[in-house]
């Protein structure tokens, strides 16, 4: 319990530090919000002054950061500079698509990556070579290129999946998001399959696996209880890191498949210098990353008794 509380406190610390960085980065970026707001029209210095006052742009940096931070803590992410909409509402409308995309991609990584890794590690021979080749391909193909190839084969060529849009309702969404999730999960699945395979190979020759065989435990049981089970320890850490990384990677895929998720929102916001939206998305990303990592650590502690003892001290 203290372990969870300590980790949550650390997460809050990371969030505050990173929000400061995000805020400072936007402050330092070229271009200014008032120039965007006047949209290239020539306006009198008085009008500019009024705009700067309206958005409190003249306050000292730390004061602006503090105001923004306290608002965020109250659930108020501010208003979009571009269309005056509430940033919280903008995010809420797009979050489900991104979450679903990331969840599907995570499942694909676990099923394909870990599944093929176990298969390659335990079978060897031709199966191993084919999976190794596939993993090399998955490694080498960039996400946007995978997206294009998948689209051209399964959407344009075979017509099995839609080319764009996120769909309505659960089934339709799954159908719309299958190709994007595949494209998103491909490189990570390749890495995870590789690491799973190596981990299995190592555990297969570990002393406790060898001695279990020497004690007359059937090979099938040695595989399940000693080799696969223990090889999942390092694999779960890698899977966690990659799932957390999916959120950042989802931007490329959302853009390629024109899905209206957080990623597309971010790209538009950056193009329009919509500071409030960019900041909000950055914070949500950091929070999601932290929470996923925390979940992975909790899962790890639940499967490895050695971790519990260290945290109880």
């Amino acid at each position, binding site marked *: 319990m203290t372990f969870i509380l300590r980790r949550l406190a650390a997460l809050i610390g990371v969030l505050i530090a990173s929000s400061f960085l995000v805020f400072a980065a936007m402050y330092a970026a070229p271009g200014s919000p008032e120039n965007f707001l006047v949209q290239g029209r020539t306006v009198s210095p008085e009008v500019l002054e009024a705009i700067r006052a309206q958005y409190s742009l003249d306050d000292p940096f730390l004061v602006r950061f503090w105001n923004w931070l306290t608002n965020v803590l109250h659930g108020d992410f501010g208003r979009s500079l571009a269309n005056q909409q509430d940033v919280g509402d903008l995010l809420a409308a797009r979050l489900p698509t991104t979450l679903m995309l990331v969840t599907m991609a995570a499942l694909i990584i676990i099923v394909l990556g870990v599944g093929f890794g176990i298969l390659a590690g335990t079978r060897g021979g031709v199966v191993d070579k084919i999976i190794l080749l596939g993993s090399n391909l998955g490694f080498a193909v960039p996400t946007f290129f995978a997206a294009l190839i998948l689209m051209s084969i399964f959407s344009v060529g075979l017509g099995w999946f839609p080319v764009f849009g996120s769909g309505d309702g659960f089934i339709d969404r799954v159908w719309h998001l299958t190709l994007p999730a595949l494209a998103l999960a491909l490189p990570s699945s390749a890495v995870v399959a590789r690491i799973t395979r190596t981990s299995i190979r190592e555990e297969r*020759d*570990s*002393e*406790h696996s*060898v*001695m*279990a*065989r*020497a*004690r*007359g*435990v*059937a090979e099938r*049981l040695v595989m399940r*209880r*000693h080799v696969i*089970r*223990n090889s999942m*320890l390092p694999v779960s850490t890698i899977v966690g890191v990659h799932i957390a990384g999916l959120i950042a990677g989802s931007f490329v895929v959302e853009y390629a498949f024109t899905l209206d998720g957080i990623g597309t929102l971010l790209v538009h916001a950056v193009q329009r210098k919509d500071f409030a939206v960019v900041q909000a998305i950055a914070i949500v990303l950091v929070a999601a990353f932290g929470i996923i990592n925390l979940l992975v650590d909790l899962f790890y502690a639940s*499967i*490895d*008794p*050695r971790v519990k*003892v260290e945290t109880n001290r």
Partner: protein
Amino acid sequence: MLTIDNLSLTIGPDLQILREVSLAVAAGEAVGLVGESGSGKSMTLRSILHIEPEGSRVTGTITFDGVDVRGLTGEALRQMRANDVSMIAQNPHAVLNPVLPVERYLIEGMHDAQGQPTKTAKLRAGELLEQVGIDAVDRVLRSYPHQLSGGMLQRVVIAGAIAGKPRLMLADEPTTALDVTTQAEVMAILDECRHELGMAMLFVTHDLDLAAAVCDRIAVMKEGEIVEIGLPEQLRDNPQHPYTRALMESRPAGLTWTPEGGPTS
């Protein structure tokens, strides 16, 4: 009972670990296999149970009760490992799966390997731990390997090794990884269990004195070959091979080993 005949083992193209090792162990007899690290003692033991490293080429024959064990595969090999020959390895912390409690280790041996009902295995797990001198039986059963000392864990391994009442025990430096006082205790327990069950033992160690204290005969091994076999007194008083003589002279001055009291001077 166990006969090793012309056993050679090569890893890779030309790394020869064993050179025509021949050795016999009679029922109930304890034979010591003494030599320095890398002399092939452990590999000889592992070859008996088919757990030599992958990619090793093994020639020669090993028979147990007249059965060619190197020819065994599948279920027959599994039965031999589960019921006839047990092994105790050097580092007990590596032998037990770190993520499973001690009780699972013992039940795995009795239920999954030997086919005893789970209920019986659970009951016997406690009895076995008492037999190897463990008092806090329930606590130890519930513990994970990292929570126990090496000495405690090696007793657990011994308990697991005698669970199936095997006729041959292969002990691979069972006390080397333990501290000195624990070494004596564990050795005494192993010796006692062996006499109680009338087990034969092939005992690998680099400690000639220790081998002399617990074994009926001793084979001295050097660079994958057995250079001399004899009674402990013979080796001590009249070593034939220069290497045996060197081993005798290199031991700590004045130290001898007794099964009851450990190292005494």
